[in-house]
């Protein structure tokens, strides 16, 4: 009985039936608890800002999402460079997984920014330097994902996308410095900026909590997405293997039929 239970437990460890593991469960539960705390502090406890008023609550979403998106794109660049050096599947899949999550979070950054802009500027969108470079950055990474979707053998696809992953990251400092280089509507840099954000107390707590929670969420998503990409590769390989075996069987059957026909003619 004990041996059977131990064997069953061992089999479950060897062949997971989903992309979950102990680490992802801990990360997932921590993220959910953190998000609940963020709602409490960001929506209900944090007071309105003296200058920004209630709109500071949108920034509790805007700043963490853009931070996670930048981090994801940096991981894509590192993964791309490492792929070109080591040529291993791990780095290619890591780069691709991070890029997809980065696009999701960057899209949310733009959505939150547009909502904040509508309240503050009276319009959802202006073709000013920061917003324009942001749109270009999003399009670049959408292009990266589109290139990955083009049917090709894994090595060609990985090499193509690694090149784009390395080129695309150059856009990030341009987006980041756009508020310094050109005059526009967007406020000055908050992340790694020259001006220290004047928030403290519950506002600062909500802002940093948001950052920590979204980083946890990103780690959880990245592990799952990487495992999904890994499984997709294995599924594609087994599908290809089955198709080749089927074609070989068809070919051998047709050659056997041809031989029997020729012998019949004699």
């Amino acid at each position, binding site marked *: 009985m004990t041996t059977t239970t131990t064997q069953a437990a061992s*089999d479950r460890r*060897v*062949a*997971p*039936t*989903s*992309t*979950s*593991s102990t680490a992802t469960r801990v990360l997932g539960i921590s993220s959910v608890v953190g*998000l609940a705390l963020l*709602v409490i502090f*960001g*929506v209900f406890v944090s007071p309105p800002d003296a200058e920004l*008023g*209630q*709109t500071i*609550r*949108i920034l509790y*979403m*805007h700043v963490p*999402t853009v931070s996670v998106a930048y981090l994801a794109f940096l991981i894509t660049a590192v993964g791309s460079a490492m792929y070109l050096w080591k*040529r*291993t*599947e*791990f780095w*290619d899949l890591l780069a691709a997984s991070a890029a997809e*999550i980065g696009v*999701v979070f960057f*899209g*949310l950054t733009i*959505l*939150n920014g547009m*909502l*904040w802009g*509508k*309240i503050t500027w009276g319009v959802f969108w202006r073709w000013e330097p920061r917003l324009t470079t942001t749109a270009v950055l999003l399009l670049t990474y959408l292009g990266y994902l589109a290139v990955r979707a083009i049917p090709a053998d*894994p*090595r060609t696809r*990985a090499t193509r996308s690694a090149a784009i992953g390395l080129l695309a990251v150059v856009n990030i400092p341009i987006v980041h410095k756009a508020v310094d280089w050109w005059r526009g509507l967007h406020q000055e840099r908050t992340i790694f900026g020259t001006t220290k954000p004047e928030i403290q107390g519950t506002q600062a707590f909500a802002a940093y909590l948001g950052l920590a929670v979204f980083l946890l*969420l990103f780690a*959880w*998503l990245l592990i*799952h*997405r990487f*495992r*999904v990409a*890994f*499984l*997709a590769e*294995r*599924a594609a390989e*087994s599908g290809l293997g089955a198709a080749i075996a089927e074609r070989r069987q068809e070919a051998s059957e047709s050659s056997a039929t041809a031989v029997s026909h020729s012998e019949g003619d004699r």
Partner: protein
Amino acid sequence: MSTTGYIVVAWVGTFLAVGVYALWVLQRGRALSKQVAPEQRRWMKSTDTNAKDASQ
């Protein structure tokens, strides 16, 4: 729409989008796990694409 409305859209929209994406990833992982042989469902196993090409 009032300021409160925009704030609600920002929070609900963010949570909803991340939630839907997370569910999609989990669901796809479960579906793919069924298609892949048990011995291949190992995480962090790296395949050298050069070695694979050379062996083919």
